[in-house]
């Protein structure tokens, strides 16, 4: 049995702009496969090609052992899709939305009733089937959208930034549902720009400017980052980054929330050097300490390495 998703040299151009540039990967059954990277990296375009919403310019992709170019209908029957934008009908009730998507997937009668109950229970919407969908809080809407996407129990599920805009509690709830689906054998491909979500994935594809920069397990991606990372707490992180960026011994300095993460060549020298430089620049430094690199640090380093490679 071939992998649920097999992608080879997949490319999409919009005029001169290459949105996805010869991307290849495979996803195994029951795997939660994450796409991460900045906006415009090609995550959404890749997902749209795999869901037959966009035609590839080059390369091949097989989803559920069907070609996305020539067997779109077979692919659509076997996948669930949830887009970035909430895209159920706001002016239909919860039940009416479920019934519509059920009909489109050919699910009716007792089977539909059973799936409806399952979705309502999953999305915490039991006894709220007659509520107008647009009146639901965003977190509930997204769980309902997930329910409609898996109404026909597809073996493969595509989620394009499914949790953007929802609060962390709802996000965690949503990921519990994704885990439950994966445990029952559903293959999940999900894009996100939340790093904490990326940690939940079994494997991550880091995309940057249309290219696949790295593809591995989150822990391995972190471990591969060999440079030590220092966390600096200071009164003005933006100015601190400026002061450190071109300093000798500093590989990369970036803001992470209210802290500054500094990647240095040598940990001991770096600790001393960074504090001194910031003091010289007139910054008040509360703490400088070595930390375990986060996934985001790993990505910054990987993208930087990619950039250097491109320049060379």
């Amino acid at each position, binding site marked *: 049995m071939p992998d649920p998703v097999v992608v080879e040299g997949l490319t999409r151009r919009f005029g001169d702009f290459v949105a996805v540039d010869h991307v290849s990967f495979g996803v195994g059954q029951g795997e939660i496969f994450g796409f991460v990277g900045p906006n415009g990296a090609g995550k959404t375009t890749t997902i*749209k090609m795999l*869901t*037959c*919403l*966009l*035609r590839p310019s080059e390369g091949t992709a097989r989803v559920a052992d069907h070609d996305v170019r020539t067997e779109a*209908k077979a692919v*659509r*029957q076997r*996948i669930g*899709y949830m*887009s*970035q*934008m*909430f*895209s*159920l*009908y*706001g*002016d*239909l009730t919860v039940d*009416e939305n479920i*019934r*519509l*998507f059920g*009909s*489109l*997937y*050919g699910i*009716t009668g007792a089977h539909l009733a059973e799936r409806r109950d399952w979705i309502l229970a999953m999305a915490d919407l039991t006894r709220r089937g007659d509520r107008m969908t647009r009146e639901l809080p965003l977190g509930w809407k997204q769980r309902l959208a997930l329910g409609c996407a898996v109404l026909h129990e597809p073996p493969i599920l595509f989620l394009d930034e499914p949790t953007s805009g929802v609060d962390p509690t709802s996000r965690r709830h949503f990921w519990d549902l994704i885990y439950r689906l994966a445990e029952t054998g559903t293959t999940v491909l999900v894009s996100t720009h939340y790093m904490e979500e990326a940690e939940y994935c079994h494997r991550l594809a880091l995309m940057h400017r249309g290219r696949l920069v790295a593809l591995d397990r989150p822990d391995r991606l972190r471990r591969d980052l060999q440079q030590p990372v220092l966390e600096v707490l200071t009164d003005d992180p933006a100015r601190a980054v400026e002061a450190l960026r071109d300093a000798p011994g500093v590989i990369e300095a970036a803001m992470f929330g209210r802290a500054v993460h500094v990647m240095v060549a040598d940990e001991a020298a770096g600790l001393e050097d960074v504090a001194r430089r910031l003091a010289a620049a007139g910054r008040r430094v509360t703490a400088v300490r070595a930390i375990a690199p986060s996934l985001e640090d790993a990505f910054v380093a990987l993208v930087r390495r990619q950039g250097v490679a491109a320049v060379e």
Partner: protein
Amino acid sequence: MSAWRLWAVARKEWIQLRRDTRSLALAFALPALLILLFGYAISLDVRHIPLAVLDHSHTPDSRRLVEALVAPRYFTVTTTLTREGELDDALRTGRVRLALVIPPSFARDLAAGRGAPVQLLLDASDANTATIAQNYADAIVARYSLAVGGRAVVLPVDLRTRVWYNETLESRNMVVPGLIAVIMSIIAAMLTALTIAREWERGTMEQLAATPVHRVEVVLGKLVPYIGIGFVDVTIAVVTGRVVFHVPVRGDLLLLAALTLLFLLAALGWGVFLSAALKSQLLATQAALITTYLPALLLSGFIFSISAMPLPLRVITHIVPARYFVTITKGIFLKAVGLETLWPEVLALAAFSAGGLGLALRSFRKELG
């Protein structure tokens, strides 16, 4: 193609439409309003034109001339003047549209049989009304002359006109049938543009596209409720025309229904195409209004006669589907003609509806952007 999926799309569309007060008002109130507006207010008939009389003669003869003028009810004497100086004021202020001046010598000249001149002043700022009024006045005065001439005159050619199909020459008899085409155009243009472009704007079209639903099922499914509304509107138009305006309905109503469907498919298909191509409610609505409603109003022969248009416009009318439908509705309403006469129009409409639906389906095949 699955009838079940098509039906699912149609049912969803109907539920949405039912909850959308704005679209519903557009679908039912606007046609009713248009019928009443065109039927009552915009009457193209010339009747009871206000007339001023300046009678210097003050004789039974002059009074008979005035009576002859107002008898057919084309004119009504609203002002009686006593001095020449008041004429200009009465016409300029618009109190009257025409003024009749009878000189003091009128009765004497008439009795002497030497030709009695009377003067008719016309306000031609509305050229159409002025021309018609002049024709009526000419005819009435000519008949009066013959009657008072004393001796019988035999004219070599005796023209006897009879008006057919719209015997009372009432413009609403041709306005109401033509209006159906205009109303259908609005329904098709506005509603499909609004509701389909909305799906692109909100991203629901993409969600539909990711399901196994076929584009034929989406397009036809979405059209079903609007075809239903179109038929309700035609019924409103026919019943209002018959009951309120006494417009004769002489032809086959079933044929009218079938051809209405043909016209609706053309117009709805065009609306779907516009909204799929433009993907914005605002743009699609404006484009729909300009490309369907305006031509239906101006270039269909509904109000302005096509044969009176300059050649370039006459050529353009051939690509206005409403033109064919106006011919069909007038033919069925007033002349009771059937397919044996209307077949060229029916063929043209069939071509337009095939084209409209074809464009709509084509625009859906294009990948989502």
